[in-house]
């Protein structure tokens, strides 16, 4: 099994890149970009599990991201729960919400599922906007606390007062998410999820309770979105309903598609490109958005498999059969 030892290489590469990044590009600005890229890697990878691997066209991801953020922050500010407990509770709440919404929508197909989950997502935003006594409505909540340090004594410690520590924390979660989705996609369970995407009726006749598998993928993916929200909110120090509306879901979807749907590494490429592209285009905001739109259209027309698929084709020219960059689930 000499090949097997090579399989970890891309993950090690990502780890090395993440650790070296703050050294190569120092400064708060680049740390901030790194944190945002890590956030979107978590959100996109987990959406990739739901939409790419399992093939469920559900557009409510930002709502679960919001449940994680609002859930944990409200527990801290309203009930005085210690942050890391509230953090875990936020993830759990996202999972519970996903179970309920998934159970009532996952029997739908394609566009029906998309628009029904969209309806749930908008209802969530309306709830945040209008339950003013709890959420302070559209004005949002300003977060005034710094999460207490966390870590394993003697091994490592994230002291979240500094931006650098926050970057390492977010990056660790991003790495864990990519690792998890990759691991899942290659497992027996992942193969069942892939079968559901390709032909649900066939998977059903093969004896798999497809509803339960779909619900499982949906819940786990949504819990990662909750994790992203619960972790990112104190860094952002401000949450508002608009941050978790359907436009955010669409943005996450866009990153997934540009990076390459179903590819394990697509979310990484997509997040890096779409977060840094608007920063790199040093022109007026108007022109920047127009250029952004053109890039989206061109990438989708010229590279239907996204960046990951494109890089894959480049690699396979140099090394036939090589799929380090694209690595399909």
């Amino acid at each position, binding site marked *: 099994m000499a090949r097997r030892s090579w399989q970890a290489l891309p993950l090690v590469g990502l780890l090395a890149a993440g650790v070296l990044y703050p050294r190569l590009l120092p400064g708060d600005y680049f740390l901030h970009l790194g944190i945002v890229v890590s956030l979107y890697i978590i959100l996109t990878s987990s959406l990739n599990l739901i*939409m790419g691997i399992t093939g469920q*066209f559900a557009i409510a991801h930002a709502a679960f991201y919001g449940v994680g953020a609002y859930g944990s922050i409200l527990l801290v500010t309203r009930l005085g729960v210690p942050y890391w407990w509230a953090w875990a509770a936020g993830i759990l709440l996202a999972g519970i919400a996903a*179970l*309920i919404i998934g*159970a*009532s*929508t996952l*029997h*739908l*197909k*394609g*566009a*029906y599922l*998309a*628009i*029904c989950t*969209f*309806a*749930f997502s*908008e*209802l969530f935003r*309306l709830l945040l*906007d*209008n339950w003013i006594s709890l959420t302070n409505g559209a004005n949002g909540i300003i977060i005034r606390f710094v999460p207490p340090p966390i870590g394993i004594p003697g091994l490592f410690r994230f002291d979240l007062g500094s931006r650098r520590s926050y970057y390492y924390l977010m990056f660790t979660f991003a790495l864990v998410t990519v690792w998890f989705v990759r691991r899942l996609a290659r*497992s*027996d*369970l992942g*193969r*069942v999820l892939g079968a559901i995407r390709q032909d*649900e*009726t066939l998977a*059903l*006749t093969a*004896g*798999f*309770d*497809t*509803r*339960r*598998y779909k619900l499982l993928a949906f819940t786990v993916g949504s819990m990662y979105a909750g994790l992203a929200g619960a972790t990112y909110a104190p860094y952002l120090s401000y949450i508002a309903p608009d941050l978790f509306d*359907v436009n955010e879901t*669409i943005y996450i*979807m*866009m990153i997934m*598609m*540009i990076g390459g*749907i179903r590819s394990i590494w697509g979310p990484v490429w997509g997040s890096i490109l779409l977060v840094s592209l608007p920063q790199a285009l040093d022109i007026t905001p*108007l*022109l920047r*958005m*127009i250029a*952004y*739109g*053109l*890039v*989206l*259209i061109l990438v*989708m*027309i010229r590279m*239907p498999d996204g960046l990951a698929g494109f890089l894959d084709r480049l690699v396979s020219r140099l090394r036939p059969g090589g799929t380090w960059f694209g690595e399909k689930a």
Partner: protein
Amino acid sequence: MNPVSRSPIQSQNHYIPGDLGVLAVHALFWIGVGRRRIAAFGATRGQGEKRAQAVLEQFGNFLVHGLVTGSMYAAVALGLTLTYGILGILNFAHGEMLMVGAYIAFVLTSRLGVNFLVAAVISMLAVGLLGWVIERTTFRFARHEHLNGLVISLGLVAILQNIALAIWGADPLSIPPPLPRTLEVWGIRIGEQRLLAFGLTVGLIILFSLFLKRTRLGKGIRATAQNAHVAATLGIRTERVVAVTFSLAAALAGLVGALIATIYTITPFMGGLPAMKGFVVMILGGLGSVGGSILAGFLVGVVESFGGGMISSIFKDGFGFVALILILIFRPWGLFGQRPEREDV
């Protein structure tokens, strides 16, 4: 985890008790809110007959205004359902067609002094042409790849919104309504402009459905939507049909945009909400069902009008979503959609 836990095959389309629980919670919530509002509503009015009359008038107002809004939803959803049927794409840029139509009508009437009806027709034609160009240059390359098409439509949204922003700025503009008076019949008050918009939209919807049912091209469109390969084998030029359909859907949106511009304000971002409503209506009516889209459009308009008037005005936009969720629980293929035999949407 053990991937081979088995279960009876027939479990697929049966609803687990969780659905009913969700339904019950929704129902209880809305009944509770609604009862309080109706009680408060009655208390502000006089007693007896006068009160009954006031309630009736109020109902009439809700109904009429709901139908007017509903006609717009129906027209938007009609365009979306045609695009989806032919291209297999959820076109998020459909709302931007509305926006472009509104701006063209604005320039023609306010800057060049053209008669409003003429301006509306011109913006319809212009947006139809724009739709043609867009289909030929972008969507052509992503047919029936719904996620790729969706991202392309998002790119178009960014481009069109920002071009409009560059030309006209972010300040809301408006077209002075050509018919500024308000009518009052049996206590129902409605602006003449809204009635005109309603009449034009309904007329166009009827014309459009007749076109789809009766004409050669209309039949070609429906055949291509059902099965493009078979349609091509039978001699229909599907390539052209696709472009024509997209352009027709855009033209419809352009006209609705011009009409909306006389009622609401024009901004570069005005297309977002109607497009979202259009999607909800399209799904509620059932994919591929033209009649379903039209009926569902009126239904959502009326539900929102009553919900917004009697239960909660800030939650107005939510009632359409609640209706959608409830109906999809019982009819996963929409009100008038085809019940799928095989699910490869």
